[in-house]
Structure formats: C-alpha cells, structure tokens
C-alpha cells in the first residue's frame, strides 16, 4: 500500500545554505546567551524577564501601596489606585516594578492640573518604605528608600 511507503528524507543543505544557516544559528545562540546577561545592567532588580533566573514566575513580595497627586493650586489628593486600574497593575506598583510605576505616574500626569505624583510602597519582607516622586514633565520618577528600624 503506497500510504505505508517511505518518502525520502529532506535533502541535505547545499554548502551555501549551510553557510547561511550557520550564520543564523550563531547569531541566535549568541543572542540567547547575551539577553539574560542584560539583567546585570538593569536598574530594576525585580525585572527578571528573559533572564531565566526562574523557570516559573517567582513569588512576589508582599507590599502595600498608596498614591497621591498634587494639583497646580497646591491641593493634595489621594489616588484611588484600586478603582482606576486592575489589581494586577496595583500589585506591580506595590512591588516597585519601575516600568509600571513610571508608566502609572506618567499616566496620572496626563490628567489636567496635575503638578506632581507620589507613590509610596511599604513592604513587609525588608520592612522598607520606597517613595517615588514624579514632577510632571520629567522623564523619570525620583526614588527614595527608607529601611524601617527593627
């Protein structure tokens, strides 16, 4: 029966195809070695993406977050984070993921009459408090940390 017959295996690549494949393979493998090393240059130690520090998602820190903004007239208002964005984003902000903290503060700055946005995270594990302040118009939030006295 013809359906049980063997088809020939794929043709071995020509010398030129092998050369091009070799270049692609070398670049692909080199990138795979290089990308995880970028972790060493990252500002945000919590950002472990593409590094293979963990095969599965690492356990997240337990932190509480609060945010406030200052209007142009000097009035300070709390930001109800949980009512604005999904809880997962709130958790990211609480854990101090810089990309999310920065994006959230820039997002708040897009509202009218906002002069400054502040986010404060209190974490249980190291007892530390991390404060982020963004003056609207600036590119990046200023971070300050305090370790609680034990």
């Amino acid at each position: 029966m013809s359906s049980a017959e063997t088809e020939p295996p794929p043709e071995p690549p020509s010398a030129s195809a092998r050369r091009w494949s070799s270049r692609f393979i070398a670049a692909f493998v080199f990138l795979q070695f290089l990308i995880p090393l970028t972790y060493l240059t990252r500002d945000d130690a919590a950002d472990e993406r593409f590094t293979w520090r963990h095969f599965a998602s690492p356990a997240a820190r337990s932190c509480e977050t609060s945010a406030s903004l200052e209007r142009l007239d000097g009035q300070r208002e709390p930001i109800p984070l949980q009512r604005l964005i999904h809880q997962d984003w709130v958790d990211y902000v609480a854990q101090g993921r810089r990309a999310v903290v920065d994006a959230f503060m820039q997002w708040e700055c897009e509202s009218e009459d906002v002069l400054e946005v502040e986010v404060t995270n209190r974490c249980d594990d190291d007892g530390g408090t991390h404060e982020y302040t963004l003056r609207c118009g600036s590119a990046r939030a200023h971070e300050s940390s305090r370790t609680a006295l034990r």
Partner: protein
Amino acid sequence: MKPWERYWFGDVALARPYLVLRFVLVVLAFDTWLNMMPEGVKYGVGAFNVAHFAWLDGFVPSAGFYLGVLAFTGVLALSQALYRPHRIAIILIAAGYTLGWACSLLDSVPHHYLLSLYLLCFVFFPMLSARSAFSRFAQAPRGTVPAYVLFCVTTAVVYFYVAAWSAADGQPYWLPMICSVGYLIASMQDRAELRALRWLTPILVAAPIAYHVRAAERGELLLYMTGIAIIAFAPAQWIHIFGRTLTRPARSLIEEHDGDGIDERASQVFYLSLVGLAVAPMVSGFVDLPGVKTGCMLTAFAMLFVMGRQLYFTPRWRPVWRVASLFGGCLALWITVTTSHARFDFYREGALDADRRGDHDTAIVYRQKAERYAP
C-alpha cells in the same frame, strides 16, 4: 565538514522533530484556551497598559483583542498539529503567540517567552509528513535538521542560566546543569558512534523530569518540559515505534496516493473546501467570550492564505483535510471552553474586579454570565 557544521548538520531521527513540533502545538493550543484565556479579563481595564517592549507601549490591548489572538493562535496551532503543518502557518502561530504575551506585562510568565523561542525554531523545521518521518521498515529515517539541534541548544541554554543564577545565589545548581548538558548530548545521540553515549542519554531524561517535579511548577510547564524531554532523550528506536503506532491511522487514511493528479474532482473539492472554511469559524459563536469569533474567522482566513493555490490547483484531498483540521481546531476550542472552568473563571474574575473598581453595571453583566456558566 568542520566540527561546527558536523554538530549542527549531523543526522537526527526524523521522528523527533516530527513529534516535538506536534506535541508543543497541541499543548500550546490547550494551554492558551485553559490557562491564558481566563486571564484575558484583566486586559484593557482603565485603559492602562505597559507592554514588554517600549515600541508596543502606545497600544492598550482589550480583553477582546487578547482572547481573539489566543483563539487564533490556539485553533491554528491545533489544526497544524492535526494535519501536515505549513511553514506560513507556523510563522503566524509564532507571531500571534508572541504578540499575545508581549503586548502586556500582565502576562509575565517566563515560559511563554521560551515557547516563542521554540516556535521560532519550528519555523525552520522541515514540514514532515507522517510517511517521511516513519517508514514501514524497522529502521528510523534520519536527516539533517539543524533547527531541531537549535531547539535542543535553546533548551540547554535556558537550563544553563537557571543553574548559573542558582549558583550565583548560593542555591543548588547541579540538577539544572545536568539538564543543560543532557540536552547537548541528546542533540547528538542519533549520530554518535560511541555506544556509551547512546546508553547514557535515555537515563539523563530523569534530570529534567526530576527538576520540574521538584520545583512543583504550574501544570502546563511540567507537561511541556516532560514531553519535550522524553522526545529528545528517548532512544530513536522507541520514538520511531511510538510515532509509527500513533500515525498509523493518518498514514493509512489521510495521506493521498502518489497516482492522484488533476482530475474532474477539482471543482468539487474547491467548493467543499470553501464551504468548510466559511462554516468552521461559526462553531466559535457558541463560545461566548469576547474576541473569540473574530479570532476564529482570522484563522479561517489564515488557512485560506496557507492553502493558496493548493485550494484549486490540487485536486487531491489535501485541501479537504486542511479544512477538516480547522474544523477540528474550532470544535476542540468550543468543547474545551464549554467543559472547563475557563469561561466561568473569566466572568467571575471580571465581576470581582469590576466590583473592586466600583463599576457595578459591568459587575452585574459579568456575574450573570458567571452564574450561567458555573460548573
């Protein structure tokens, strides 16, 4: 050949790339529907989003977009696993899957990135038929498949870094290091003359299985890595026998005879395929999740694109089998979603989140649906 070329272009048992491609595509399909779709309700809330890459930051994906991409990816992946994969379809699956996780940090599961790397390797796999991978003879067919070796090396690099970071943190690192070395050895086992290597490799499969079982990871990661390890480490003869048994129905039913040529069936097959392409996505209408219908329709368009000229100019049964595989994918999506907790979890999480944000109207809509689909 230089040693570099001997390593990458040496022979491997064709059963390995054949099985690993299909295994990953099948698990990926069910993974997207069962594990990723229920998470889709988080997308677009408050129009806030941060993407994995800065160039995607301006785009805020909605729940409908995310679920549509997942439905498209899953259905196309399963249909390609069911019938002879096509390179264009694999490119679309890789692109869809990568877009799915890359568009938001809400999906930061590390192995989703690994799967994108695997899918990129698959793009360069030979699109083997069951007949070319499994002969009727006892001897397992072999061939040059550098992309499969790259697939093994990719896995080895991942385990290497897991071991290296563990060592840097003062944690035990020997098990992931054995996994890394094991994959490098496994990639050479089909052409190694050294008998000891052929004896050693199947034993090394214990390392990745033990590592993932010990780490008590998410179920789907354990399934992916165990299945891949078994296919990569098992002796060629075992894999050949397993694959031959598995594909016997496909080889005797689906594969067309060599004598088939252009004949009067051409127009019948053409219209039958077109009707099938139009009807298959309609199954998704019963899924009742945002974006899924659009995702399945796009899969039908992708299938039309994949078949291209084949649809009319190949009077063989190949277009019909392709459409049948699309039907299989859409039906599997419908059955999976309706018989699992996926849909209930989606609406329940949506109701809880809407309540938390004080959006009671949305919460009521989601809660009604959650009650309707409660297990």
